[in-house]
């Protein structure tokens, strides 16, 4: 009897917790990340920011060592791939120069805005993601420094991602390799317009909506298209085509892109202060 009552109470607690969770999730969806729940998140992130900064600085060498041990096989594969790529790049140096010239010419001809004209905020990467499913980084600059949601983030080499969350002193950036990321792009030489989608850490971006008959060559530069409603201004280098294969019987060509920015070793980045919505 007592056990039965205890089981009933236990189930009641669980149902109550499930209903509360669903209510909180609904509130988060309705508030679109703002409101009370947004404030709670911002407050928690800001409160722990100093501790996380300290831990990141202190444990960085240990983390690198651990990554080196567990990723030894990957490092060997990466070394072999890099050697092959060096040979490939040496042979294709002229092609690269041609692509750069094409990019400059395309920008001039299309009267594109270049990222260099846009005001920017320099930021330091202070933390890796807490989650195992998100490809995000945290920057040490927030809304107090002029950073807002949806602003693009670039490194010296090219596009890194976009800001998806901001607190007073910090911002969270979703990398272009995150499976939830999609960037409108244009192939610099063939002018094909496509969408570059993330496929996860250390994987190439995949291009969607590429015409099956398009002339897309390996090493071709991919830049942001800046088409309507895109948060990314046009002309920012995204990557270079690594795989371009016809897909017989398919409606689109199979194209994969290697990001030009070294997303695994980011230290300093710039947030481009383009038009934004506040959060």
């Amino acid at each position: 009897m007592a056990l039965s009552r205890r089981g009933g109470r236990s189930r009641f607690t669980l149902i109550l917790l499930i209903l509360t969770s669903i209510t909180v999730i609904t509130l988060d969806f309705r508030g679109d990340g703002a409101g009370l729940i947004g404030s709670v998140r911002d407050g928690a992130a800001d409160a722990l920011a100093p501790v996380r900064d300290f831990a990141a600085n202190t444990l960085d060498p240990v983390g690198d060592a651990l990554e080196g041990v567990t990723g030894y096989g990957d490092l060997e594969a990466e070394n072999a791939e890099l050697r092959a790529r060096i040979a490939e790049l040496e042979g294709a140096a002229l092609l690269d120069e041609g692509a750069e010239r094409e990019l400059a010419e395309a920008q001039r001809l299309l009267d594109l805005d270049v990222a260099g004209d846009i005001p920017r905020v320099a930021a330091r990467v202070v933390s890796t993601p807490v989650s195992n499913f998100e490809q995000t980084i945290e920057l040490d600059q927030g809304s107090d420094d002029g950073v807002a949601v949806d602003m693009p983030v670039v490194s010296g080499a090219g596009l890194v991602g976009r800001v998806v969350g901001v607190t007073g002193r910090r911002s969270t950036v979703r990398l272009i390799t995150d499976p939830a990321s999609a960037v409108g792009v244009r192939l610099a030489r063939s002018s094909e317009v496509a969408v570059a989608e993330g496929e996860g850490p250390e994987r190439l971006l995949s291009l969607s909506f590429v015409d099956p008959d398009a002339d897309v060559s390996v090493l071709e530069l991919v830049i942001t298209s800046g088409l309507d409603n895109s948060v990314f201004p046009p002309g920012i280098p995204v990557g270079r085509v690594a795989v371009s294969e016809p897909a017989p019987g398919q409606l689109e060509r199979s194209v994969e892109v290697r990001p030009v920015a070294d997303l695994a070793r980011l230290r300093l980045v710039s947030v481009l202060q383009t038009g934004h919505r506040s959060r």
Partner: protein
Amino acid sequence: MTTAVRLPPVLLGAVIVHTAVAPQLRLFGVSADLLLLFAIAAGIATGADRGAAVGFGAGLLADCFLQTPFGLSALTYSLIAYGVGSFQSTILHTGRWIPMLTTLVASALGVALFSVSGLVLGEEHLLSTRLVTVAAVVAVVNALLSPLAVRLVRWAVTPQLVPGAVMR
């Protein structure tokens, strides 16, 4: 000292380690999910009822640092802690390896449940081939840390008898 006094600082400590230390120490690119471990340990140490409540709190704290819907971790952790607590109450044998094995399985299930629940809520990116790696690493690391976590949670939630008090 009572649970109300001990539990908050222990939970805060777990949050700090979970958000500041664990992400820096990754195995195969995956960090331990220490708040999920905390929820599971609560299920083992206190049973289904209180375990679910502690798991819910730990999940809400985890949600503060994620971009996924707020409450998703709370839902997942409370369900897992409840399941662990219910399972634990049916076991008569008390071998040392049982909490570790329970944590191993529950951690993998927790990661999978989080992904599937996220998928239901439109977070398609949570379900990918990487899920297997994440579930495996989280399960193994959490299982190794479980003896410490269970002792800590048991200390935090079990009321101490006042010296000199007499039970009649």
